[in-house]
């Protein structure tokens, strides 16, 4: 709840570990808010929720944030640093070998843009950088807000592959989207939001 406006008004949800959930809903239904809540990025002011063993009201949200990967509407990097520098920073912070940076950049087809300053990237390239960052981190819980937006066809295909791979490795994924998932092999559990609550589809 922010400024007295309840972002979510009735969400009763159980997401099992290792599953793929697809959150849909009209504009303003509360999808982004729900994902932000799960990521521990916004506080929970009423009701109860537990994510990955951390209670969202009384628990240590920093603990939680360390275990989730978040891909939001806007890319989230240091604009003045290059793609490589951003990834190296993340790798160091996570104690990953720096050599992985080139590997993940190649996976999202950004190897040609490694030395471009992040603020000069196109919208889709930013999205790809966001994905590269997540690939580097390999979190337990992936929270992806409209991941297809501004990706081109090739990018979307890559994303679908990534998703299957992630699920195969046992991680939990929650995706919000306006379009259905493209890959027919993915069988998401559908959650439909309207007016801040879950409605049966």
């Amino acid at each position, binding site marked *: 709840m922010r400024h007295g406006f309840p972002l979510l008004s009735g969400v009763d949800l159980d997401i099992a570990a290792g599953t793929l959930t697809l959150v849909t809903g009209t504009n303003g239904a509360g999808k982004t808010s729900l994902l932000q809540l799960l990521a521990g990025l916004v506080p929970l002011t009423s009701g109860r929720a537990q994510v990955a063993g951390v209670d969202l009201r009384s628990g240590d949200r920093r603990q939680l944030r360390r275990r989730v990967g978040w891909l939001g509407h*806007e890319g989230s990097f240091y604009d003045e640093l290059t793609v490589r520098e951003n990834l190296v920073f*993340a790798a*160091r912070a996570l104690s990953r070998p720096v050599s992985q940076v080139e590997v993940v950049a190649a996976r999202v087809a950004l190897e040609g843009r490694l030395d471009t300053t992040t603020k000069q990237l196109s919208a889709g390239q930013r999205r790809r950088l966001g994905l590269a960052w997540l690939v580097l*981190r390999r979190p337990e819980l992936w929270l992806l807000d409209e991941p297809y937006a501004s990706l081109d066809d090739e990018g979307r295909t890559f994303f679908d592959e990534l998703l299957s791979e992630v699920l195969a490795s046992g991680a939990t994924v929650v995706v919000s989207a306006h379009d259905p998932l493209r890959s027919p092999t993915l069988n998401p559990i559908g959650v439909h939001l309207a007016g801040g609550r879950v409605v049966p589809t």
Partner: protein
Amino acid sequence: MIRTALLVAGKDLRIERRSRVLLWQVVPFGVIALVLCGLALGPVGVSRATAGPGLFYLVTLLVTLLMITRSHAIERTAGTRSSVATLGLDPAGVFLGKALALAIELWITGLVLLAGSVLLLHTSLHGTVKALPSIIVTLGALAAVGTIYGALTAGDSGAGTLLPVLALPAFAPLLIAGERSFRAALNGGGVWEWWLIVTVALVAYLSAGILLYGVLEES
């Protein structure tokens, strides 16, 4: 903690180097402010040589405020906070790193300002050199407390204006102590008791930052 600190400090300094804000904007600003203040002292000029310490710290204060706003603006862009939050960096390390980067920037600016003060205001060179240890520590303490207050106001709609209100009272004692010790050095007085005072302040602020920064970062 130290690893995180070095990582963060390196990142901050790299961004600073890339954007050249320090070189092209902050340092010139400091020099201009110094010149203007010298000018404002009027043509009497009697006390210009002794005005050095006061002016130096006044300008340093302004520069510090600018640099803090900038240091935290880096973290504040659209989604940076959420992605960095999920990196799970040790907050104490982040604090130390940001404070270190800020301190280095302040030391560089301070050096230029001191040179300006010696050249333009005829502050005694000998006294200035004697005052250096206390100046270095004072600027370090400013960086430490500034980083805390920067985090207090980061991300606010009016961060640029709230920061000065909150930080000025905390800066004031440091500035006054720094100024007194500088003046004492110029007049050939004892500098070590002042040096002790600012060192205690530095240690106190560093400990406060290490303890409390984690609370602040959690948003």
